[in-house]
């Protein structure tokens, strides 16, 4: 079980796609839900929102960026290898309905999470305007799939190597000026979600974001993933991972994500060193 049946390297090998055998999860999973994976018995439990599911084949797809030891160990796994643990589908699915015009904003591996949501929103009859951002064009993922999942697609790059030279927020502002937007879905790095939410709050446009706090069990048992939403503390694993972007305390989330920064760094360096030898 949890065997990798397909594997791709994207964005210059910094982002990895795994299609994994998971019949039960593939039958149940809906856009916006996540799984927890563990490479082996000594590994960490890592939550990843699913990028795709294939109930006929009985597989799910995850796309992750290599940022530390745990994801580096995931990267080592090849086709035919199995994850030691895979559980899901966890969290609440995205509420998909026809609202009219929707802007989907994606950055980094957030684009992978955004993809099934954009597709479902378009299938529900919405007009989907997508804005994708990356540092440079060669780091952008899933452009073709997002083109299919959207009515209009805008690309932004920090270095100007393709599309708009600048941030997704520039284009978002522009779109909100020109069009009547009913919903914004923003998924990507925390600063991106934070600034998108600030812009849409000014315009009073409902905004969904998908949060990625540190988790352990992913089933509500530990409270590690707690986030402040308005005046309340919520558990992203069971109450989320999607929340109203206007209410999320992004600064607290960013700080909590750095809880183990020193340990993670040491651990990754030791791993790289051992691998080099």
């Amino acid at each position, binding site marked *: 079980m949890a065997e990798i049946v397909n594997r791709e390297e994207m964005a210059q090998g910094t982002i990895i796609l795994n299609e994994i055998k998971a019949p039960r999860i593939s039958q149940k999973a809906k856009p916006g839900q996540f799984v927890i994976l563990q490479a082996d018995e000594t590994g960490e439990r890592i939550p990843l929102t699913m990028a795709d599911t294939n109930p006929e084949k009985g597989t799910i797809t995850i796309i992750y960026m290599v940022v530390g*030891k745990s994801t580096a160990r995931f990267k080592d796994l090849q086709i035919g290898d199995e994850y030691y643990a895979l559980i*899901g589908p966890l969290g609440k699915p995205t509420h998909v309905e026809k609202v009219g015009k929707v802007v989907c904003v994606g950055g980094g591996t957030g684009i992978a999470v955004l993809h099934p949501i954009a597709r479902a929103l378009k299938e529900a009859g919405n007009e989907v305007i997508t804005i994708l951002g990356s540092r440079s064009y060669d780091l952008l993922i899933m452009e073709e799939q997002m083109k299919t999942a959207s009515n209009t697609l805008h690309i932004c790059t920090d270095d100007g190597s393709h599309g708009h030279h600048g941030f997704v927020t520039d284009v978002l502002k522009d779109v909100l000026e020109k069009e009547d937007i009913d919903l914004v879905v923003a998924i990507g790095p925390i600063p991106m979600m934070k600034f998108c939410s600030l812009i849409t709050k000014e315009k009073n446009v409902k905004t969904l974001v998908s949060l990625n706090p540190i988790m352990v069990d992913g089933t509500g*048992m530990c409270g590690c993933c707690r*986030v402040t939403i308005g005046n309340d*503390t919520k558990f992203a694993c069971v109450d989320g991972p999607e929340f109203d972007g206007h209410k999320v305390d992004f600064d607290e989330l960013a700080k909590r994500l750095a809880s183990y920064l020193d340990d993670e760094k040491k651990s990754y360096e030791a791993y790289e060193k051992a691998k080099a030898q």
Partner: protein
Amino acid sequence: MADKKPKKIKVPRAKMPEQDPDLRRRNFDEVPLGLTPEMAMLEASRCLQCKKPLCVDGCPVSVKIPEFIKLIAENDFSGAARKLWETNALPAVCGRVCPQEEQCEIKCIVGKKGDPVAIGYLEKFAADWERENGSGEAPAVAEKTGKKVAVIGSGPSGLTVAGDLLLKGHEVTIFEAFHKPGGVLVYGIPEFRLPKKIVAAEVAALEKMGANLECNSVVGASVTIDELFEEGYGAAYIGVGAGLPRFMNLAGENMIGIYSANEYLTRTNLMKGYLFPEYDTPIARGKNVVVLGAGNVAMDSARTAMRLGADSVKVVYRRSRDEMPARDEELHHAEEEGIEFVLLTNPTQFFGDENGRLTGMECLKMELGEPDDSGRRRPIPIQGSEYQFDCDLVVVSVGSNANPLLTNSTPDIALNRWGNIVADPENGKTSKKGVWAGGDIVTGAATVILAMGAGRAAAASMHDYLTLGW
């Protein structure tokens, strides 16, 4: 003057050899070292072999106490272990974590005039002896009935149900959300109180009896109970535990360095954070640690923090020493290891630095007023008694609520207003046909042995259902 009758020499209650507190407070090895065979036989000889043993009445799973003790006294340790297994699938666990002092031992006749027979020590001894020296032969199971049972959750109540129904010849599959079986025995109770190899051995014994184990299976998420019935299961037992930690809703509670006891213990025990970086999951090693709450879980957290290298560990509790809910033995062990109890004190807020890391907290002194609903004197804040102090790690151990993950996916199971499953206290039957429940998901956070007792009752009722009908 008549001659004095020769005085019968009274054998004193065995004293459990333990790791020295100064050593053990810095390691994760088990604290009690166990009785030697000689000590066990001597202790077993103290049992009066009562015709109507009150101790058995005190045991939630009715362990055949005088019978297994007699076998120990007769040097048949393997026989004693097998006698235990007749009514208890987890004797090595119970011998360690049961509150014997308020169950079997409190009823012991020997205890009326002196110290009761050390039933817990003897149970631990027999189970350990069999694990280390026994044949490894599984107890015999009845002829196959062809009925399939789903046990959801592999904690103490689920394992008890599995054991009982396997003995009766049913086919049992245990579903566990985590990657390792054992539930709270594995993620919650620390290694120094319950070595994980012991839980693994007890689960392996069930597998030898024929249990199927499906780890990484979140019933409610990857499969529902109704789907299990469609797959051919004839009955289901829900023993998923409480599993939704409570926080105190205080300012600053989401700062880095504040953990729920569940997270703190899961990272340390299940994920083996204490072995980081050999294991990948990190755990904060606080220097000035505060544990909020005074139950067994709070003691486990405090003693874990000491083992992870703390300079100071304080247990902050709003009532007085007499009301601390943890077992006496746990309180005693904690104090021996240098843990400080700060009583009649309640936290009010937390302070941190610009990175959101905890640096200190504020507490308020309390005094005891009139008794409340629980019969305990209500703690009342003393106005103006606030004081602040430094700390870099806080573990919130004030209990758990019912986790809704499974019950949300099973809307036809009746819940009480706190979200706990409503189950018949006699037999564990829920409002849904073919479904039983027991343990913390029904009662709210309680003990291992009460969960096992609920499992025992449910298993009997499930067997009736599978053979006779609802």
